[in-house]
């Protein structure tokens, strides 16, 4: 039994297709959106310490609160903030799309592409609105 499963797994390893030439792979909108979902997730994950730092300082005392308020007015921090706002928005909308796909809503190929475009657009719209507010 064990021998058979070992054989099976080595067979699977051999048969696994390897295609590392990304230029030969088609990237429909759903793929770009999905990569964006992952990239946004990583960015959100890595930015956690900075946001915790801001939260901690802002709750310490009046001066800390003023410090954070001043810090988030800095152009570099604003730019960073906008990237994080896009990340959160994109991750949020892509997540809702996953929820709907789980419920078999928009599961067929044509609609899946349309909702992927919608997710991308919604992410950029939030980015644009906040750029307008913050800059």
């Amino acid at each position, binding site marked *: 039994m064990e021998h058979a499963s070992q054989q099976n797994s080595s067979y699977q390893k051999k048969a696994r297709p390897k295609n590392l030439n990304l230029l030969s792979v088609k990237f429909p909108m759903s793929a770009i959106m999905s990569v964006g979902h992952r990239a946004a*997730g990583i960015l959100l994950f890595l930015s*956690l310490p900075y946001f*915790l730092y801001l939260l*901690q300082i802002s*709750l310490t005392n009046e001066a800390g*609160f003023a410090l954070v308020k001043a810090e988030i007015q800095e152009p570099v921090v604003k730019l960073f903030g906008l990237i994080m706002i896009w990340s959160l928005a994109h991750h949020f909308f892509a997540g*809702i799309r996953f*929820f709907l796909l789980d419920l078999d809503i928009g599961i067929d190929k044509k609609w899946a592409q349309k909702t992927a475009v919608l997710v991308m657009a919604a992410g950029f719209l939030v980015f644009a609105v906040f750029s307008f507010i913050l800059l």
Partner: protein
Amino acid sequence: MTYQAKGLQAWLFQRLTGAFMALYILYFLWVIFTTEQMTYSLWLEWFSHPLMNTLTGLFFIHLAVHSWVGMRDIVLDYIPRDSLRLFTLACISFFLIMISLWMLRILFSLTL
């Protein structure tokens, strides 16, 4: 020792934690945008409220689970070498434990 949540369990965790965090974020944004002038006393009062304090703690537990499942999926997809994979996963879990302890410290420092 296993670092893999079973597939269905991981999928379910990701959905449930995502749903909770989505609601928390919407509530957070709603408060931020409906508060005309956010002052230190308002900010402190808000986070010191037992309900908000608890919700924020829960948010972080959900965040830790959600990002663990998500980051683990990405590592399993793109890092095929076992040693590097294990090292990366160890770094991610260490990072998450540190972040969670830090968050607990912030929340517990507020007097309810």
